[in-house]
């Protein structure tokens, strides 16, 4: 199976996960979206040398994953795919910031390495929480929630279309890739030049399809605005969910819990 098709099935699994029926899935998407936003803001607001205080934040994705019955390895693999981006952002810190901040036995650790680790932890947390949000809410519902919460409509609609047609695009791309693979021998026909043609062709097909979709929309009275008949209902559960988690995040932001716990235990021992 080609890698493109694997990507297709992988994306499909995300969709299947969001169709589960657990207490987390049943929550109003807006509550989950807002909580995740607050989570991300509190995580990224930590200083650049902070690591220990951020660690307790792993509780949130962990709880959501277990309540939502989401597979850990699957989501973890998804994070691994994008982790090079964060790596490239952080990797120059150890070269630039060489001031020694910490010594463990014979090892001395520079500020650069600490800030690098901090970036990685923050990245895993934020990317992970967004993946968990999508896996337990569904991409479409997240877009709807965005729109209901006042994000520009055009933005939400663009995201919806992106998600709808990424599947069609993947199928089209994998057909072309297959057609090429079947007629390429000994590495001939696999070069960049042919790849360029494929990509160009895919773009042209996409433009054609966009035109046909627009036509289909016009035929059903499209006038520039996309209307959706959907009611979201938020009750007490949602309020408690959002307020409790947010309070927890803010408490963790203000108090360094591992530090407090550590000094408490040290005090007990001494």
């Amino acid at each position, binding site marked *: 199976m080609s890698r493109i098709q694997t990507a297709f099935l992988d994306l499909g699994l995300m969709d299947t996960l969001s169709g589960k029926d657990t207490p987390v899935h049943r929550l109003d998407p807006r509550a989950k979206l807002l909580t995740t936003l607050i989570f991300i803001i509190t995580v990224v607001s930590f200083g650049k040398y902070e690591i220990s205080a951020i660690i307790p934040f792993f509780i949130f994705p962990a709880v959501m994953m277990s309540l939502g019955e989401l597979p850990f390895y699957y989501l973890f693999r998804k994070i691994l795919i994008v982790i090079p981006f964060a790596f490239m952002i952080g990797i120059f810190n150890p070269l630039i910031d060489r001031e020694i901040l910490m010594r463990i036995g014979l090892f001395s650790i520079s500020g650069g390495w600490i800030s690098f680790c901090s970036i990685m932890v923050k990245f895993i947390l934020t990317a992970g929480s967004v993946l968990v949000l999508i896996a337990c809410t569904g991409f479409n519902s997240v877009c709807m929630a965005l729109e209901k919460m006042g994000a520009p409509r055009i933005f939400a609609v663009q995201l*919806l279309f992106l998600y709808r047609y990424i599947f*069609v695009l993947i199928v089209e791309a994998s057909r072309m890739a297959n057609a090429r693979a079947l007629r390429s021998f000994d590495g001939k026909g696999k070069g960049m030049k042919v790849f360029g043609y494929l990509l160009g062709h895919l773009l042209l097909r996409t433009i054609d399809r966009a035109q046909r*979709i627009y*036509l289909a929309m016009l*035929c*059903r*009275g499209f006038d520039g605005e996309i209307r959706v008949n959907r009611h979201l209902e938020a009750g007490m559960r949602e309020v408690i969910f959002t307020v409790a988690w947010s309070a927890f995040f803010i408490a963790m932001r203000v108090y360094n819990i591992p530090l407090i716990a550590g000094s408490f235990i040290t005090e007990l021992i001494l």
Partner: protein
Amino acid sequence: MSHHIVEVKNLKYTYPDGTCALKDISFRITHGESVAVVGENGAGKSTLLLHLNGYLMSGNGIIRIGDYPLTKETVKEIRRTVGMVFQDPDDQLFMPTVYDDVAFGPLNLSLPPEEVDSRVENALFTVGALHLKSRPPYRLSGGEKRSVSIATVLAMSPDILVMDEPTSNLDPRARRKLIELLKTFKHTKIIATHDLDMVMDLCERTIVIHKGQVMSDGPTAEIFMNQELLAESHLEKPLRMQGCPVCGNK
């Protein structure tokens, strides 16, 4: 209700790149008729269909749908009257779920939410796809996609149904079910297709188009008996009218 008449008079159309797609097309389809538009690839069938809902407008020729001539002012009303089902359901189903997609048209007609709801349910029920309501369109099979595409159009309660290759890419059973479904519709139907066996089941009248012109317009049975006409228009007799390869009967 007004009469669901489709009238095309001396329609000509040349694409901006100079391809002359329609040379001179005239016909009149009356209330409740079921008409097939057949012809070879590139004969102008799709171009003709695109004129019927005002996507393409040419200065040459007149199109009347019901009581209105097709103009920029009437195009909105005409698009409600003429329901168009496209060849590729992926073009037609662009919303995140089947429900949203079927509701798209009625919502654009500014109907109240309860009315939209009942129209969606009815349309999906009619095509036997009510159980697919909350599914995303890309997860459906070819036959299911086709049924939902038809529901999206039915939800707007059109008077005239225009379909481009409705049976393409369907397995034989899905095709049969679709034909049975279309038989139950009382709408005026215009179907562009290469599936001449379906035409025998559904359409009492056939218009043959060849190189942008009407070659023949008449009762389906007569047209399909005319071997010369079919050959000239790159068509063949429907399989059912051909000899049986097993028993050798001609």
